[in-house]
Each structure stands twice: as structure tokens, then as C-alpha cells.
């Protein structure tokens, strides 16, 4: 791998930028691998990278049915934070946030991680009580968090409407200053390039159509590019988790829903942080290009169509205009949907399964992007050791039988 640096930028500029090597190879599939990762999104690529880097397992393939980062990795609203209520969840997301903090250097790829802070607004007395509880819980877990009042919010974000006569007045917020946003495509590309450099084969246009098993153990996968043998298979396919589980004869507690997002036309810098509100149900940040990046909740029905209903968008924008009246005349440029895998407790599953050698990493629902490095790190450990790391042990599939759910649905509500 040619290392990227300021010097390489300078040198390639003199060569009219024709000398850049491809970021990763496009090899033909081998007959078999030690580990096959199904799903070439951020989580799958991160898994392959950490398998190679942390565990020395380099005979690995990442199978992607489309192109790298073309699924939810390229469809999310790029928010990264770790201020979850429950200890199990907050420690996992905090591990991820710590990895984010060194990720650009680690991957030698600028993922444009910008720790611009995330405000989670409270609009009622109960919201504020919940916020104070969550901030206290975060601090006990060593996660930076603070409670701010409406005045402090107005000072930091002059365009926000903190009028006490608003329909849902802003009373305060939790603020995590180490939280922020990152460039989602760069995360996929950076992990792909770094994994490839360690010997991982990234196979695009390679859709898995069957999971081969013998005596309760996986032997490989059927794909659109032929049969690929594998000693272990890690499935990390977000909204399609149930489809893959069905191929292996498993049932998952997951329902796939469309989650929509949209961006506005580019405007001058006006919002230098991230604002989320569970109560009025919307969140917004501004990209480096100047677009407002806006999202909210899932569509009510299950679906795989990568689009949703317009009234969901309307609901989101009502909330955004309520919070930021100045945005009422901004035109929206693009809207799209991704398919998210919703778990009953809004927490992921990073787990072994009853099939020997088959591992699932799914159920991230609406908030998987922030977890990309941590998810890959924990999943790689689980696959390499055939045992979960203590960070992801609570996220076992068996929690739905034991009843040890981690109820972030009640705690973090909708906006992830």
C-alpha cells in the first residue's frame, strides 16, 4: 500500500494526479478462505480489518453484493456519539468512539472525523429529568457528558428557536463534546484500503445466495460468483440480516424498516454542531459542503425497498422548521432511504449462533454508523476466538431467551 501523505499529494499533483494507485485490489474469488465476511459495508470491512490487524487472520474475503459502501454506510446521517444510558451499550459505543478518535491515523485515510459536539434537546420536565439521569450515567462510565440550559444552547447555536412560547419549548439539552460527525464514504473506503493492504480480498458484485452447512457446521457460501468455502462466516448485512438468517435456517428478532434521510441545497456555514431532538423528532447537522443533513425516525411498516413514505419526511421537516425557523425556505436537494434492522431492545446482536462457525452482527437499527469501528473490533474478536469479548458478551442472541435485554428503546427513544 502506498502511504498517503502531504508529500504524496504534492508529488501526484505534479503528475497531474495520474499516478495514484488503486485503493484496493479487485481479485478473483479464491476457492476458500479461513473467514468469509458477508457484507461490504463499514461494519463488515472493519471486521475484516481488525481480524487481520488484531488477530493475524488475513485469509479473509469480504463479499459485497453491490459496491463498497453502497448500502447503509453511504445512506446514514454520519452522527457519532456514545452517550447511551445503559452501561452495556455505552461501553460498547465508547469503545467505538475511542477508535474513531485515532481512526484517520490508524487507517492512513482521512475519515474527516469532526468532534463538533452533539446536543440532545429536552422539551419537557420529564425530558430534562431523563437527560440528567443519562448524563450522570455517562459520567459514571467515564464518558464526557454535560447538561446545558436553553440560554447556553442559544449562545452556542444562535439560529435555534429557544422561545418559551414555542409549541415544544427547548428547556435544555445533554451535550457530548467529543461526539460529532465523520465522512461516511471515507470510512468504508479507508477500511477497505487498509484491510486490502493486510491481504483481505474484497469481492464486489458478489451476492450470497446460500449458506452451506454440514453436520451443524458451516462449510461455505453459494454466491453469484460461485461457491466459496469458508471455515467461519461472519454475517453483517444490516437490513438483510433476516434473509441471510433464513438461508442458514435461523430466526432473528429483527424487523427491517425503511429509514429516510435528506440533504438540503448547500448554504453558508450556519450550524457547526449536531442537534437532535427525540421529542419533536428530528436531527440536523451541516456537512462540509454546506448541505444540511437531516433525518428522523423509521417508517412504520417493514420493507426492503430503500424508500419510504413522504409523510415521514414531512413530519421530520416539521420538527426541523420548529427548531430552526431560518431553514423554512431552504430547498431540499435529495432524499433517500436505507433499510435498517430493528431489534426489540434497540441494541445490536454481535453473537455466535447455533450453527457452528456462523456469526451474526446485526440489529444496529437506526444507529449503526457511530459503531462502525467498535462493531468491527468486537465482531473480529468474537469470530477469531469463537467467544465474544466482554464488551459484546451482553449482546448475545440468547438474551432474547434469558430476558437480559438492554432496553435502549426506552432510554434513547427514537433518534439514534
Amino acid at each position, binding site marked *: 500500500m502506498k502511504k498517503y501523505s502531504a508529500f504524496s499529494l504534492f508529488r501526484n499533483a505534479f503528475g497531474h494526479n495520474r499516478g495514484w494507485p488503486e485503493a484496493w485490489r479487485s481479485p478473483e474469488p479464491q476457492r476458500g478462505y479461513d473467514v468469509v465476511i458477508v457484507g461490504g459495508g463499514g461494519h463488515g470491512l472493519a471486521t475484516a480489518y481488525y481480524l487481520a490487524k488484531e488477530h493475524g487472520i488475513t485469509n479473509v474475503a469480504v463479499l459485497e453484493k453491490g459496491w463498497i459502501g453502497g448500502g447503509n454506510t453511504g445512506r446514514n446521517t454520519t452522527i457519532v456519539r456514545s452517550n447511551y444510558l445503559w452501561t452495556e451499550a455505552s461501553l460498547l459505543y465508547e469503545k467505538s468512539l475511542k477508535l474513531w478518535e485515532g481512526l484517520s491515523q490508524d487507517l492512513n485515510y482521512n475519515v474527516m472525523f469532526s468532534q463538533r459536539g452533539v446536543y440532545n434537546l429536552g422539551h419537557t420536565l420529564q425530558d430534562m429529568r431523563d437527560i440528567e439521569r443519562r448524563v450522570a450515567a455517562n459520567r459514571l462510565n467515564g464518558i464526557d457528558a454535560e447538561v446545558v440550559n436553553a440560554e447556553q444552547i442559544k449562545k452556542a447555536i444562535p439560529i435555534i428557536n429557544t422561545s418559551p412560547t414555542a409549541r415544544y419549548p427547548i428547556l435544555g439539552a445533554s451535550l457530548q463534546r467529543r461526539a460529532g460527525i465523520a465522512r461516511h464514504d471515507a470510512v468504508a473506503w479507508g477500511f477497505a484500503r487498509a484491510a486490502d493492504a493486510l491481504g483481505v480480498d474484497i469481492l464486489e458484485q458478489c451476492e450470497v445466495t446460500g449458506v452451506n452447512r454440514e453436520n451443524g457446521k458451516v462449510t461455505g457460501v453459494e454466491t453469484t460468483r460461485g461457491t466459496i468455502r469458508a471455515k467461519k462466516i461472519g454475517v453483517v448485512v444490516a437490513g438483510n440480516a433476516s434473509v441471510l438468517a433464513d438461508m442458514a435456517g435461523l430466526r432473528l*428478532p*429483527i*424487523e*427491517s424498516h425503511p429509514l429516510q434521510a435528506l440533504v438540503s441545497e448547500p448554504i453558508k456555514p450556519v450550524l457547526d454542531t449536531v442537534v437532535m431532538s427525540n421529542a419533536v423528532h428530528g436531527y440536523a447537522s451541516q456537512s462540509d459542503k454546506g448541505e444540511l443533513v437531516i433525518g428522523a425516525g423509521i417508517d412504520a*411498516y417493514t420493507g426492503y425497498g430503500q424508500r419510504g*413514505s413522504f*409523510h415521514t419526511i414531512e413530519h421530520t421537516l416539521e420538527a426541523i422548521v420548529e427548531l430552526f425557523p431560518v431553514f423554512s425556505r431552504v430547498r431540499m436537494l435529495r432524499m433517500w432511504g436505507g433499510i435498517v434492522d430493528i431489534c426489540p431492545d434497540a441494541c445490536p446482536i454481535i453473537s455466535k449462533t447455533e450453527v457452528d462457525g456462523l456469526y451474526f452482527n446485526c440489529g444496529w437499527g437506526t444507529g449503526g454508523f457511530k459503531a462502525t469501528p467498535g462493531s468491527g473490533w468486537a465482531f473480529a474478536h468474537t469470530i477469531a476466538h469463537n467467544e465474544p469479548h466482554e464488551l459484546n458478551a451482553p449482546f448475545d442472541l440468547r438474551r432474547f*431467551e434469558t430476558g437480559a435485554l438492554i432496553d435502549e428503546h426506552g432510554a434513547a427513544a427514537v433518534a439514534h
Partner: protein
Amino acid sequence: MLLISCPYCGERAETEFAYGGEAGIARPKDPSALSDAEWADYLFMRKNPRGAHRELWNHAQGCRRWFEVERDTVTYDIVASDALRNGNGKSER
């Protein structure tokens, strides 16, 4: 937005309805006789198919009755819409 046909009221906009998830999940007659795995299967495990899906909808802002819809989860086309065969959310189909 989906255009959903209520078997009692006819075609209405999706915003009048509430979604009820997978149809045909019958509550076990004797829950205490089930193993933890069987109970978890009833509570949490879902087919979540890519393609034809039988699901429950409630006409929340209309007649407020539950009914069953067959919808394609990729195209979102609604293929059929039927009254429930019995009152507990379980269809005979």
C-alpha cells in the same frame, strides 16, 4: 405513501392507519408450558421476509378495526386486504 384498502371503509391514505406487524402469530394457549426458547420465539422472532408479507393494520383514524394485508416488502404493492377470520390477530390463511 401507501394507499391501503380497509375491508370496512375502502381505500384510504396510510396516515389513517397504524401498523401491527406480522400477521398470524397466535398467543400460545398455555405460556407456562413453553420453554424459554419457544416463548422467545413467540415474543421476538419474526419472519421479516423479503417479498410477500402478511401483516396487520389498524384503521386507527377510521373504523378502528384490525385487518390483514398482504404486501410485497420490496415493491410495497398491496396484493390483498382481508377482514380477520377470528378476533385474536390470527388468520386462518
